[in-house]
């Protein structure tokens, strides 16, 4: 009975109900959507890990990167249980894939499971397995391939013999997987590498996922603002009903329970809807996320979403938590409401006055926390905590600061309508404040992330121009072709700069050591962010190494410090170079030294400097007989890099738009729910001779003014956010620090968007007012409200 009475309110206020459900649905959707993306990616890393090792099984590796195949039989004969692996990159037409060659009879269970539906005889004979999405990329596969979901995207799983043939590694193996206990002492010349690729990916991509989670949490918070305001308004509007019910003898406990049940019911409905929407959202975003993870980290993530019941339950739980969080206050107030508390708006206003003071106090406290975190905090988590504290502080400060601004404007206003406009705006601020806080957060997030991305893009483009000076690069098929190419090209071009690398652990982080030829190309162009005097001469004199910014920041190594290079011991750091887009650490030594340190390392790529690119290209194709796919020209390389960059932030952009949309919805919800209350405030003006059109126009103008003021407030908050992203989060997550650049044109565009969002939110109530013909206003004069 009680419940029926309570629920009947929603039948009469369908829009309010829709807003409440929409808010909770959206919040759940964004949160669970992001979680689905994370879970999908993590699952993919686990697949990759399971394929190359059994639950993080260790590997035996040789410092040079590969070893003679005889080591395998030799170790097995000593009773050391190992399984050989050959791994390499393979270019197939336009696509580059990882070719993973395993020995199925000795491989760990996880690897063998990838073969679950295959034919061993065909596998031995050269057939392989690939993820269905990888398969779809080939028009002409390099070998007969069968689909398997156990193989990571972008990897071809083949027999070890097949891999050796394709990679030109006959008689060589990349590493050995330990399937039994590690031998003690370790075999001669081999090292134990504990981290599996999956674990490495997990660590590298952690920051990306934390980023996504932070966005999800922000969206969830913004969504909760909607729910909170809808629940709060519904509570206010049903105050009379509560009073009546209590007077009729309904116990407080029953009433509270009924209200709680109502909340749970809505959470359930909205939670389910949110899950469905979240799934759709994640499925829509996944291809971009997968592309980003592949482009940035080389992490194999399939682009099609899988459903997990755990995810669904977690999403529902979030919906319930959100509903309780947003509706708990209303329940608490009901519990503490005297039976016959008068429904007086002034009490509400006074309560909000007190709330405002608490808000300011809270904002200051959070601001203090943010400052403390900025001062003493370190690490990615502290960075995000700092952001959260600063953003929340700014959000809480939004209504008081807006109130201050409106009060000032009211002082300056002369005309009566203007005076009323400002005064009225200020009076309505408390009711709008939640929605405005949501808008402020969304705008600040947009400005912050937008500024970060734009700053990054500007820096990145400049850096690309410096780094990609070679007219083109060639990827030789194998070491022999590399030697032949160098001999062929030497008399024809200005310079042939070979690229050689060995994988290495630098200061405890996975990375690689590169060889660099002493050449003007590098001396003139290679960007450095810190260096010793005569850095290039000293590098050529084998006096030390250059390291990338990632290594410099992670290990806090700068010119003057020393870094431990495998085989070379401790060498001085001569310079630090920016290395955007690379998740791994790097060090560079001069070519001659490199070849002595790591003899026999094959050349992976050749960078070509030439004055006549087209002639050189023609010579390579026609005279040398190189395939066109092996040649990447400068423009192509830049385009690929930029494409990866843009894709990386596509997801950010999408989430930005979604957050802003949620904020607009919050405003819409609030304005629609408020429109009834607004009638009482507008009716006297109408009676005194303002037209409906004027009033509707003023309503729109008020919305715009509030949006504008919020935008002005969001600007410094957004810039602060950008600064934290660039100077704290990026450094922690990616290992590079970028200068902050401002892009006012972007702000203007965002302000336009904010204005449009606000107009979209305010248009319907205003239109109803204008077109309602005064009927609703007349009823104000006739009835008690």
């Amino acid at each position, binding site marked *: 009975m009680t419940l029926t009475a309570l629920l009947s309110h929603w039948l009469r206020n369908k829009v309010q109900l829709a807003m409440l459900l929409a808010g909770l649905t959206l919040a759940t959707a964004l949160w669970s959507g992001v979680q689905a993306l994370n879970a999908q990616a993590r699952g993919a890393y686990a697949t990759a890990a399971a394929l190359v090792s059994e639950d993080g099984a260790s590997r035996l590796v040789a410092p040079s990167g590969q070893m003679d*195949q*005889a080591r*395998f*039989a030799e170790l*097995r*004969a*000593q*009773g050391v*249980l190992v399984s050989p692996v050959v791994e390499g990159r393979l270019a197939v037409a336009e696509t580059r894939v990882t070719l993973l060659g395993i*020995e*199925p*009879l*000795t491989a760990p269970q996880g690897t*063998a*499971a990838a*073969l*679950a*539906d*295959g*034919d*061993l*005889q065909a596998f*031995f004979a050269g057939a392989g397995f690939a993820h269905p999405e990888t398969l779809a990329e080939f028009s002409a596969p390099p070998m007969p391939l069968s689909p398997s979901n156990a193989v990571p995207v972008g990897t071809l799983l083949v*027999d*070890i*013999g097949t891999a*050796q043939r394709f990679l030109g590694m*006959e*008689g060589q193996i990349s590493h050995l997987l330990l399937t*039994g206990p590690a031998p003690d002492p370790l075999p001669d010349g081999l090292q134990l590498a504990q981290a599996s690729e999956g674990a490495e990916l997990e660590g590298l991509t952690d920051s990306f996922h934390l980023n996504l989670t932070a966005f999800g949490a922000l969206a969830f918070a913004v969504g909760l603002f909607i729910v909170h305001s809808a629940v709060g308004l519904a509570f206010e509007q049903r105050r009379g009903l509560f009073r009546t019910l209590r007077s009729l003898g309904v116990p407080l406990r029953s009433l509270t329970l009924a209200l709680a049940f109502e909340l749970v019911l809505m959470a359930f409905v909205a939670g389910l809807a949110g899950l469905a929407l979240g799934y759709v959202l994640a499925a829509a975003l996944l291809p971009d996320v997968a592309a980003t993870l592949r482009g940035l980290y080389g992490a194999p993530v399939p682009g099609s979403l899988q459903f997990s019941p755990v995810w669904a339950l977690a999403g529902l739980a979030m919906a319930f938590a959100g509903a309780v969080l947003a509706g708990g206050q209303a329940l608490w107030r009901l519990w503490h409401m005297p039976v016959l508390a008068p429904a007086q708006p002034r009490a509400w206003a006074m309560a909000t006055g007190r709330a405002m003071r608490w808000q300011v106090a809270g904002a200051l406290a959070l601001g203090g926390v943010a400052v403390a975190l900025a001062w003493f905090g370190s690490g990615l988590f502290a960075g995000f905590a700092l952001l959260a504290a600063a953003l929340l502080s700014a959000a809480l400060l939004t209504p008081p600061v807006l109130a201050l601004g409106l009060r000032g404007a009211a002082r300056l206003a002369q005309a009566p309508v203007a005076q009323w406009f400002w005064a009225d705006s200020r009076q309505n601020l408390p009711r709008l404040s939640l929605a405005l806080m949501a808008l402020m957060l969304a705008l600040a997030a947009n400005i912050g992330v937008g500024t970060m991305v734009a700053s990054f893009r500007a820096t990145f483009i400049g850096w690309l121009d410096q780094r990609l000076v070679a007219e083109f690069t060639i990827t030789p098929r194998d070491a022999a072709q590399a030697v032949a190419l160098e001999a062929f090209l030497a008399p024809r071009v200005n310079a042939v700069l070979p690229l050689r690398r060995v994988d290495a652990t630098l200061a405890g982080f996975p990375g690689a050591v590169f060889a660099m030829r002493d050449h003007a190309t590098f001396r003139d162009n290679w960007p450095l962010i810190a260096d010793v005097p005569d850095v290039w001469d000293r590098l050529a004199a084998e006096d030390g190494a250059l390291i990338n910014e990632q290594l410099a920041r992670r290990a806090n190594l700068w010119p003057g410090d020393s870094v431990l290079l495998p085989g070379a011991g401790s060498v001085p750091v001569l310079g630090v170079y920016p290395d955007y887009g690379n998740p791994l650490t790097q060090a560079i030594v001069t070519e001659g030294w490199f070849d002595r340190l790591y003899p026999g390392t094959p050349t992976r790529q050749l960078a070509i400097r030439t004055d006549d690119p087209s002639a050189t290209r023609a010579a390579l194709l026609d005279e040398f007989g190189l395939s066109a796919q092996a040649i990447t020209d400068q423009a192509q390389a830049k385009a690929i890099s930029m494409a990866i960059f843009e894709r990386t932030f596509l997801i950010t952009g999408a989430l930005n738009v979604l957050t802003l949309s949620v904020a607009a919805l919050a405003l819409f919800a609030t304005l629609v729910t408020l429109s009834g209350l607004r009638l009482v405030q507008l009716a006297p003006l109408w009676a005194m001779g303002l037209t409906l059109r004027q009033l509707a126009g003023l309503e729109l103008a008020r919305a715009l003014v509030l949006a504008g003021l919020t935008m002005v407030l969001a600007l410094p908050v957004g810039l602060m956010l950008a600064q934290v992203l660039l100077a704290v989060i990026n450094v922690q997550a990616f290992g590079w620090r970028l200068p902050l650049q401002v892009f006012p044109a972007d702000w203007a565009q965002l302000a336009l968007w904010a204005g449009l969002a606000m107009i979209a939110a305010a248009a319907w109530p205003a239109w109803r007012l204008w077109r309602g013909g005064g009927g609703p206003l007349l009823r104000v004069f006739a009835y008690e409200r």
Partner: protein
Amino acid sequence: MNVKVFLVLLLWAPTALAQGFAGLGTDATGFAVPERGRALQFPRDHGAHPAYRIEWWYLTMTLQGADGRDYGAQWTLFRSALAPEERTGWDSPQVWMGHAGLTTPDAHFAAERFGRGGVGQAGAEAAPFRAYIDDWHMTSTASTGADALSALKVEATGPDFGYSFELTAEGPLVFHGENGYSIKSAAGQASYYYSQPFYTVTGTLDLPTGPVEVTGQGWLDREWSSQPLASDQQGWDWVSITLDDGHRLMGFQLRGADIFTAGTWITPDGTATALPDGALRFTPLGTAQVAGRTVPVRWQIDWPARDMRLVTEPVNPQAWMDLTVSYWEGPIRVSGTHTGRGYLEMTGY
């Protein structure tokens, strides 16, 4: 298809062969087929025969500790060919599987190894004789001029056990069937099959409780073929028995639509008499629950023509080889008209 399941089918499953599995149902794929009347040559035939589909080096040992406690040990290397040839490197179509078993009256240990030919991980070479997979090996220690199998060193280790034996043959090689041509069904499926049943064994068992010195007798079976079983045969029960009077008896029954039996009676000097189908009769006397199955671990074996009636008791009824390819294999004690010790193998349960 799972790798290991593949091996099961390849090595053990006549039913799969009957279903024409992957073109392996017939010998029309180029594999060599045993021929009646072909004389075995040594040391060549001690080594691998890559042209034949399957082959094994199967050693079982009945052992006793100094305290008279009974033990049993098994060392087996299986070869299975995907194509009737050997190639070097990873192209080799030869797949190898090692099994090691160790039975005590109250425990049973088993381990397996897999490997490919061509890269030196596993193989069987005739001269000098060595059959091996990883660190498991059976290596000839015979003096020059003697048969390579007349003295052996055999070793294997599992995760929780290990063993090392020296074997010395006290008699000659024994050829089953017609000079090693052994019929395996009424329809005529056959294999090459010879044995060295006269080993005396000394060695050490590595048990979780510590090392145990043992002595005893060993029996090595060598067999290769391309299609040993008829398509309807589900499994077999096989015994090798060393009687206290110095005679040896090898006998088996193949269970299919009909029962097919065969055996070899070996005198202490190595003279072998082939027992034709139906000469031996196998009767289960009692079963045990082993690894969730009902397995007939007690048998009565009758040879009516000689009024021989043997009853076998397992040293440990739980001697289940719980490996990718699983079966029962363990030492037995023999009583009845004669007494002795031996090994029982049961597959297809």
